[in-house]
């Protein structure tokens, strides 16, 4: 019984590591770039879109996993798309009703979540082949991985391009967040490029490069460790 739980725990950890790092949808799969690049001129926008995307991902993964044995493979893609489109529209309507101002700011990018390939990709590659519990873990960590990139990118671009951090946080957190904005000293000259579209591409490129650099460093240390163990057998 305990080994079964251990196995499950191991699986969850594996899924989490893939979602956050090894198969990060934004840095490795490069999916969902259109909204990712467009709204990350500000940390709060990035966080808002990240959370909305995660909600859609969670809904679609759960539903797809639940029906995976009952849908013939010929029509699975249209059915997945119907589920995703439905989830996005529901979340769009709920945000419109309960986060009115934030919904206004994120504008077209909320309905556009439906075109985020990451969501269909998780439905097809993971949820349609795995039980509900694993699909939930997968949706959560893929979502967190995507949201983290949105936040880092948004913070980077806002800081460089606008000289602030967490500007307009009240849109997401309400009136308590009125004074959360951090301003750089006035002597700092904002670099407009960072909040313009080219800045988005450059910043994302740098983030991807940084990730690859870390991966290479890790690989090197493991590679130098292996020969010592391998040599005697060869």
């Amino acid at each position, binding site marked *: 019984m305990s080994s079964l739980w251990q196995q499950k725990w191991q699986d969850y950890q594996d899924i989490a590591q893939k979602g956050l790092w090894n198969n990060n949808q934004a840095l490795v799969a490069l999916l969902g770039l259109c909204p990712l690049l467009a709204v990350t001129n*500000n940390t709060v926008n990035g966080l808002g879109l990240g959370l909305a995307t995660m909600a859609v991902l969670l809904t679609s993964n759960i539903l797809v996993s639940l029906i995976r044995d009952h849908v*013939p493979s010929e*029509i699975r893609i*249209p059915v997945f798309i*119907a589920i995703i489109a439905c989830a996005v529209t529901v979340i769009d309507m*709920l945000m419109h009703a309960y986060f009115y101002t934030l919904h206004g700011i994120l*504008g*077209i990018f909320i309905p556009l979540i439906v075109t985020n390939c990451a969501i269909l990709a998780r439905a097809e590659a993971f949820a349609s082949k795995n039980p509900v519990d694993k699909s939930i873990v997968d949706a959560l960590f893929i979502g967190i991985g995507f949201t983290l990139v949105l936040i880092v990118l948004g913070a980077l671009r806002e800081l460089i391009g606008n000289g602030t951090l967490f500007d307009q946080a009240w849109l997401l957190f309400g009136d308590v967040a009125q004074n959360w904005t951090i301003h750089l000293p006035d002597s700092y000259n904002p670099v407009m490029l960072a909040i*313009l*579209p080219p800045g988005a591409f450059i910043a994302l490129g740098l983030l991807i490069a940084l990730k690859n650099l870390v991966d290479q460093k890790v690989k090197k240390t493991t590679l130098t460790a292996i020969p010592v163990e391998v040599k005697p057998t060869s």
Partner: protein
Amino acid sequence: MKTTTLSTTMLRAAGLMGLFVVVSVGLLVAVNSFTQPKIAEVERQVMLNTLNQVMPTRYYNNNLIEDMTWVTAPDALGTTQPMPIYRARLDGEPAGLVIETIAPDGYSGNIHLLMGVFADGRIAGVRVLSHRETPGLGDKIELRKDNWILSFNGRQLTKDNAHTWAVKRDRGDFEQFTGATITPRAVINAVKHTLDYVNLQGVRLYE
């Protein structure tokens, strides 16, 4: 035998897809039916606050929300639909108007505007009600992003200054946004046409 299985499979698939569509549509209708009133309520609350931003309360003493009428002016207001006009009065005398208008030529669809005009033709204020312009570029027409929309305050429209109602790139008085000229251009044109309409109609709009 094979054809029967094939047609059965196809029928089953079609039926399942139909079922999914019906369930999805049902869910959407249900969610819509309970979010719609909530959205309408939030919109009305925001509307009340916005009305007072474009027509400061010290200039009138009637019930602005109640003193409302509909006007249809496709050329000036950017839509064939009737649009609401709120009439502000001070002790019964015309003090100003608050008009909803649409800039139909925004970068990404219609830009809904609310503008206050004093009885003497000066603009009391302009605010954006809703838009789908590009975040970070065109959305500087919102007051919470930029002060640009305040550059309308106190302006009048006369024959002599009509050409100054444009962005600087078009040799007008208004700043444009980096990376988004279409948006401010659309807003300026909408305000200009609406103000022209208000000036032409004069006191008739208070009746």
